């Protein structure tokens, strides 16, 4: 290997200790800096032609972004909490967290990838976006403003937001939930479609994403009604095969939820 090691021309690398400091750095670079969370999506991007920002602002030294705080009716998870840590921490209160977040990339990537980073980049085929949308997450931005997750995902296309924390309302104790994802390969493969079902008393909810379609929510009175509603919405998907995969994922998620112990 005699090729020189390719290093993207990033002159500045910052390790701020506070959110305010990171915000100042971001403002000072006027859109030419990128926030670095776990880097699992951003690092390959840096090495693609034209992917080089003027500066990187590494958020890992900001202690506040790594906290998880449990409250009476919700949990607040710092943006820099890794997928692996979130999956373990949420497992008891959110039974669907383990199967859903367990589908994110692979175990080594999950040790580094963060909830905030994944959400900010808003990949359409994202278990994280699907999980957060399904649970009515509120996103707390760096300035403290609260934004519903669907609004945030819609806005991510313009510029990745600076996320402070994610607020998740706790599900009711009697709720049953299920997650299903259709993959070509178990680990590291691209998702064809995924669905998360939440069944409560008289209220059934389904969150689906497939192909290049961002996740969306459907609500009905019970599982079968959810499927009818999904068929009615199937023009949202980018092709007949995605539609079929999304329906398959939805059927499976609902069946898993129906079977789940309360």
């Amino acid at each position, binding site marked *: 290997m005699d090729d020189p090691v390719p290093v993207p021309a990033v002159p500045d*690398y910052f390790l701020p200790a506070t959110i305010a400091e990171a915000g100042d750095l971001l403002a000072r670079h006027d859109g030419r800096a990128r926030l670095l969370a776990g880097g699992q999506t951003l690092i390959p991007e840096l090495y693609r032609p034209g992917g080089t920002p003027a500066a990187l602002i*590494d958020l890992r030294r900001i202690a506040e972004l790594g906290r998880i705080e449990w409250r009476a009716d919700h949990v607040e998870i710092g943006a820099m909490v890794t997928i692996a840590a979130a999956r373990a921490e949420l497992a008891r209160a959110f039974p669907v967290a383990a199967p859903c977040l367990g589908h994110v990339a692979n175990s080594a990537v999950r040790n580094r990838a963060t909830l905030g980073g994944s959400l900010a980049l808003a990949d359409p085929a994202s278990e994280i976006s699907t999980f957060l949308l399904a649970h009515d997450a509120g996103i707390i931005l760096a300035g403290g403003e609260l934004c519903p997750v669907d609004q945030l995902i819609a806005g991510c296309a313009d510029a990745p937001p600076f996320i402070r924390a994610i607020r998740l309302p706790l599900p009711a104790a009697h709720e049953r939930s299920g997650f299903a994802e259709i993959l070509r390969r178990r680990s590291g493969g691209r998702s064809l479609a995924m669905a998360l079902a939440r069944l409560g008393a008289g209220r059934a909810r389904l969150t689906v994403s497939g192909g290049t379609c961002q996740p969306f929510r459907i609500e009905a009175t019970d599982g079968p009604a959810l499927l009818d509603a999904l068929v009615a919405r199937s023009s949202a998907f980018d092709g007949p095969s995605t539609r079929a995969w999304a329906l398959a994922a939805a059927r499976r998620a609902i069946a898993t939820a129906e079977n789940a112990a309360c």
Partner: protein
Amino acid sequence: MLINCTLNGRDTAIEAAATTRLSALLRETLGLTGTHVACDEGVCGSCTVLLDGSAARACLTLAGQCDGVAIETVEGVAAGETFETIADAFLRHNALQCGFCTPGFVTTVAAMLRDDARERLGDAEVEARISSVACRCTGYLPIVAAVRDLLGRDR
């Protein structure tokens, strides 16, 4: 940027551009070529190293992210106590053929053995971790057998 880290148990200071990939830093600057590179996108797992004890892709880690971190490469695992046991199990079960992916499995399995000793890992977790590294030769069954043997579980 000066990177102060622990590399295979030794305190080390390395001068590197903050945006150098750890995989390149290990191979090109430090001569630790046991860390293999194939996909450069975090999918194949050949470059898996341990950062503060957890498996991570060296190709998806920047030098700047390693300041203050304990890095353990396959060379570090190979110098440790459990390596002989891992190597024996891999040989006994024919868990490698061309060997390109093996460093990624060795680091992944070393972390798995330590984690399992702390708190028993479920079978699904064990399988998920094995499938985080791509092997094109073995078809995985021999690797699963070797790992289950190492963890003292029935096949």
